[in-house]
């Protein structure tokens, strides 16, 4: 199979059902070489099924899939050398220390990264001689990331990589991912954290009911750039807001009326989260699987960090 080298992943008409219930239902996707692509969606939307088909873990029912020019369900060790996988759940090797495990996994790859360098890069330098059993949830996740990037992958899969991270660790993780992307690694990320997706991703795909319902850059997703802005200010001691597609004109008018500096002026666009929730609600109501928007809304809360739910 030959692919244009600027396409890392190409998916057409992907379908996968479990016991007759479709989990992925005609999904199309293109991921360009070198981009960071985030897949968003509620639990059960088909994110993990899609990603695990791309990783070669699951067999599809129908559709065409090409990952780095190969069909993942028949690709061999040569292909696996070029991908890195950070699974959603992690465990095992409990009694092995960080440096032992990273050093061991380095032996699986030709041209592996230097284990010491990788341990330092994921911030586990002080835990080198700690057994995996004694790592915190976030540290264990960083160990997973270390094992995922050891082989110098051309394509890195990150399935909810920062679940259980504290905010500082998440920022540090973002810096690491950014540096990998700068080095040319293509990255597929699934996450429940919209700030994470917005910070890291070149493009986002929103998946509900097994299909991509929106796909764009973070600042344009779901027509976000076309959305009405919300202008807030204070007039006669009362906070006011107005929605407008012409915020600049409104601010000029306010300035003329209230003086050069409009008191407590804010101009905001809908956040990615606002757009995302609208997309999910819309998909849920049109699909009529969840006719009540409140039902749909309840399914899109970020997963409890202590208890990752497979989607």
């Amino acid at each position, binding site marked *: 199979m030959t692919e244009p080298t600027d396409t890392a992943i190409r998916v057409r008409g992907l379908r996968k059902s479990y016991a007759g219930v479709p989990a992925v239902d005609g999904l199309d996707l293109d991921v360009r070489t070198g981009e960071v692509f985030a897949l968003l969606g509620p639990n059960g939307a088909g994110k993990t099924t899609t990603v695990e088909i791309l990783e070669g*873990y699951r067999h599809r029912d129908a559709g065409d899939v090409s990952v780095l020019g190969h069909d993942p369900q028949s690709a061999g060790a040569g292909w696996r*050398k070029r991908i890195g996988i950070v699974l959603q759940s992690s465990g095992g*090797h409990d009694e*092995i220390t960080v440096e032992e495990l990273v050093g*061991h996994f380095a032996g*699986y790859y030709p041209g592996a990264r230097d284990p010491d360098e990788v341990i330092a890069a*994921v911030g586990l330098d002080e835990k080198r001689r700690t057994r995996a059993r004694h790592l915190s949830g976030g540290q264990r996740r960083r160990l997973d990331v270390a094992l995922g990037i050891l082989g110098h992958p051309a394509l890195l899969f990150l399935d909810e990589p920062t679940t259980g991270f504290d905010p500082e660790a998440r920022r*540090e993780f973002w810096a690491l991912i950014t540096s990998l992307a700068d*080095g040319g690694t293509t990255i597929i990320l699934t996450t429940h954290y919209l700030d994470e997706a917005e910070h890291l991703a070149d493009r986002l795909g929103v998946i509900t009911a097994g299909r991509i319902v929106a796909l764009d850059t973070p600042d344009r997703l779901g027509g976000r750039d076309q959305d009405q802005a919300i202008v807030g200010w204070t007039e006669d001691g009362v906070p006011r807001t107005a929605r407008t597609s012409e915020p600049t004109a409104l601010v000029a008018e306010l300035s003329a009326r209230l003086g050069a500096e409009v008191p407590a002026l804010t101009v905001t666009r809908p956040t990615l989260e606002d757009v995302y929730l609208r997309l999910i609600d819309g998909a849920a109501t049109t699909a009529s699987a969840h006719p009540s928007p409140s039902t749909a809304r309840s399914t899109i809360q970020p997963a409890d960090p202590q208890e990752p739910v497979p989607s």
Partner: protein
Amino acid sequence: MSSLIRTGPDRRPHTASRPSTPRIAAARTRLEIAMYFRERDSVIFSFLFPIIMLGIFAVAFSEQIGPDEGPIDFAQYFLPGMVASGIALVSFQTMALSLAIEREDGTLKRLRGTPMPPMAYFLGKIGMILVVGVAQIALLLAVAALAFGAELPTEPDRWLTFAWCYALGTAAGTVLGIAFSSVPRSAKSASAVVVGPLIILQFISGVFFVYTDLPSWLQNIASVFPLKWTAQGMRSVFLPDHFEDVEVSGSWQHGSTALVLAVWLILGLIVCVRTFRWRRRDDG
């Protein structure tokens, strides 16, 4: 985590050696041995268990056992059973438990996502079982001889019998352990599902009880399974010649022992190849 990796895809490998199946298998063996001995449960309940049991037998029963023309100490009599028990624990129990747990906790899934050759994984398990098994038998024999006065054979043909019984028993136990690892529905139930049947088997296979004292229907059930045959083979190694007459068949049955163990080994291999899974049953 803030220090960045700025190495491009064409960065030179930090090591010149290319990964090969033997090299990775050797690395996996070392890792498996470390995991085995760092897990206190496995050290007590599979590595030391036969040695502890032998100590209990030796201390609890001070009288002698066997035919009138030449009874022997209990410790001597139960030594072959403890050797057979050790083989079953280290090969079958260790394999079935570790695979069930590694399938459940995602270790297998993670490994499957790397270029590690699957054969290297199994060779690593087998290497670990050989190293742990030989260490266990050596310790067991040393304790039996030095602490409890058991006499070890000096004839080379007895040690030859020991070698093939040990090799066949361990090989069969290992593949059956791999095959059986798919039976437990979860890691939580694994130890009960694996250890329970093995304990029953030890009671009816001449490990904890004198085999000839069992009712014949229980003997018949036990004869289906490999443990009875490794125990009998080990009796032929460690008991005096005149004990052969008190065996059920009046013979050590070396031919049947080799045949039964070989059949189990082949059956186990077939089941392994057909049923082995890298992921949990409920994982797609």
